[in-house]
């Protein structure tokens, strides 16, 4: 029965098949090339149906450069704020450090739900292999870069009503924020609200193609940054909803952060208008110890551009309050 079958994985597959429990093809194949991202793996030529997108407020990943692609087999149900992606949707995010590909994160919606995986690039950049589910302490081509575990993927992506982050109305607005920290120039052919509507891939979408955060340039960029970097967890329906901090949208951020007491740094405020040094939100962005650091996942390096931006925003809040008092 097992003649010629040597690896533990293969033996397990044969035994499962013998029991009538054939698991079928894996949701996440052993190499990145097998996920279908590339038309030609050898030249890293991305298949034309895997289309690039570039969120206007990128997630800080300790300075790693990113490229992203999505495959949509059918239109998205965009009739509500949390877009619902069709079965067989696939999404990739490639991270590079120092100009070298380090890892490509992958998520796919199977009929049974979303699956998450990470592929780690080899030293010569010719192929990326599936990382262990528990992640890796460092990547082959970037020793300081940590590869997330499957649980960490789920921790960020399986929090809200949709697990696809960075692919939503504000992030794909055609009115891009020039002051967004680490703003990326959209890759040629990048999807945005206009192109998705033109191809009929946003079913039920009734919003503007140019949503933007109202406010001064600093406020716009600051709230956009918080939306992208903090709102994944700090939301009304997330696992830390009990904290009562909602940074998903500007109105909620203003309501739950500004002038609100912090449980963590009591008696300080989450955001103390005019007082960056007394604002716990900023202090935790600057913290390095794992008990205090925010976000707690995916970053170990302080985002200086963002902390300067947030400090400026907090400074400006005092001016805003002063003006409102005078009215």
């Amino acid at each position, binding site marked *: *029965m*097992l003649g010629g079958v040597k690896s533990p994985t293969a033996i*397990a597959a044969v*035994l*499962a098949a*013998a*029991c009538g429990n054939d698991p079928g093809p894996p949701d996440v194949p052993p190499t990145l090339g097998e996920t279908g991202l590339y038309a030609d793996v050898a030249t890293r030529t991305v298949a034309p149906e895997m289309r690039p997108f570039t969120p206007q407020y990128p997630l800080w990943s300790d300075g790693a450069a990113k490229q992203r692609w999505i495959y949509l087999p059918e239109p998205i149900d965009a009739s509500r704020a949390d877009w619902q992606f069709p079965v067989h949707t696939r999404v990739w995010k490639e991270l590079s450090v120092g100009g070298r590909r380090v890892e490509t994160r992958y998520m796919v919606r199977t009929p049974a739900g979303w699956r998450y995986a990470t592929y780690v690039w080899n030293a010569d950049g010719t192929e990326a292999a599936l990382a262990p589910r528990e992640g890796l302490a460092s990547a082959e081509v970037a020793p300081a870069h940590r590869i997330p*575990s499957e*649980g*960490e993927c*789920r*921790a*960020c992506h399986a*929090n809200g009503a949709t697990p696809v982050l960075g692919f939503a109305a504000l992030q794909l607005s055609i009115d891009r924020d020039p002051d967004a920290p680490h703003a990326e120039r959209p890759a040629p052919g990048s999807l945005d609200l206009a192109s998705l509507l033109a191809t009929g891939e946003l079913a039920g979408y009734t919003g503007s193609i140019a949503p933007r955060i109202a406010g001064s340039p600093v406020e716009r960029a600051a709230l956009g940054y918080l939306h992208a970097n903090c709102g994944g*967890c700090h939301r009304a329906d*997330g*696992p*830390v909803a*009990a904290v009562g901090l909602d940074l998903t949208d500007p109105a909620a951020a203003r309501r739950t952060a500004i002038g609100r007491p912090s449980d*963590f*740094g009591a008696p300080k405020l989450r955001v103390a208008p005019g007082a960056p*040094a007394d604002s*716990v939100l*900023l*202090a*935790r962005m*600057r*913290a*390095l*110890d*794992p*008990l*205090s650091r925010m976000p*707690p*996942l995916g970053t170990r390096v*302080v985002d200086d551009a963002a*902390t300067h931006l947030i400090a400026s925003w907090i400074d400006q809040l005092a001016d805003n309050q002063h003006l409102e008092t005078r009215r």
Partner: protein
Amino acid sequence: MKTTTLMFALFALHTAACADKSQPTAGAHAPSPVERGKLLAETSGCHDCHTPLAMGPNGPAPDMTRALSGHPAALAMPPAPELPPGPWLVTVGATNTAWSGPWGVSFTSNLTPDPETGLGTWKQQQFIDTIRNGRHLGVGRPLLPPMPAAGIAKMSDDDLSALFAYLQSVPAIKNKVPAPIPPKAGPVASK
């Protein structure tokens, strides 16, 4: 002989692989999730750190009137002693609920279903994610020593669900455990 042995081994392997492990042995009492969870809690050492020790006639013993309620809020700990350089690394409070080491100071959590200070408002998936990811509520700060999350994370979802069911069944005890203290720098490091 060799062939017979190989065939026997393969038969055993096949039988084991096909066995439905969720079914109890015939005649055995099928434990409820709470019973299963109680067994797991007792054999996995949950009480060791989450039930405070109290001094009794036979020495320190778990104070079961405060079972699984974590570090007593009323027991304010003085600063942990500074250890000299050398192989000694960790100090532990007399209750076994406060631990100091390179990670800072950790206080064991209230695992009872008290809604304000324990796990009363937690959902089963949050508990599973906490253990699986080794992070508070699955997404927050890392769980700290001496919590053996990496080992407990190897339990199946069914076992973790049973453990959660048991923890939700024990008497709720109101006890607000202090937040952990980061090493040296205080609660918040800022530039």
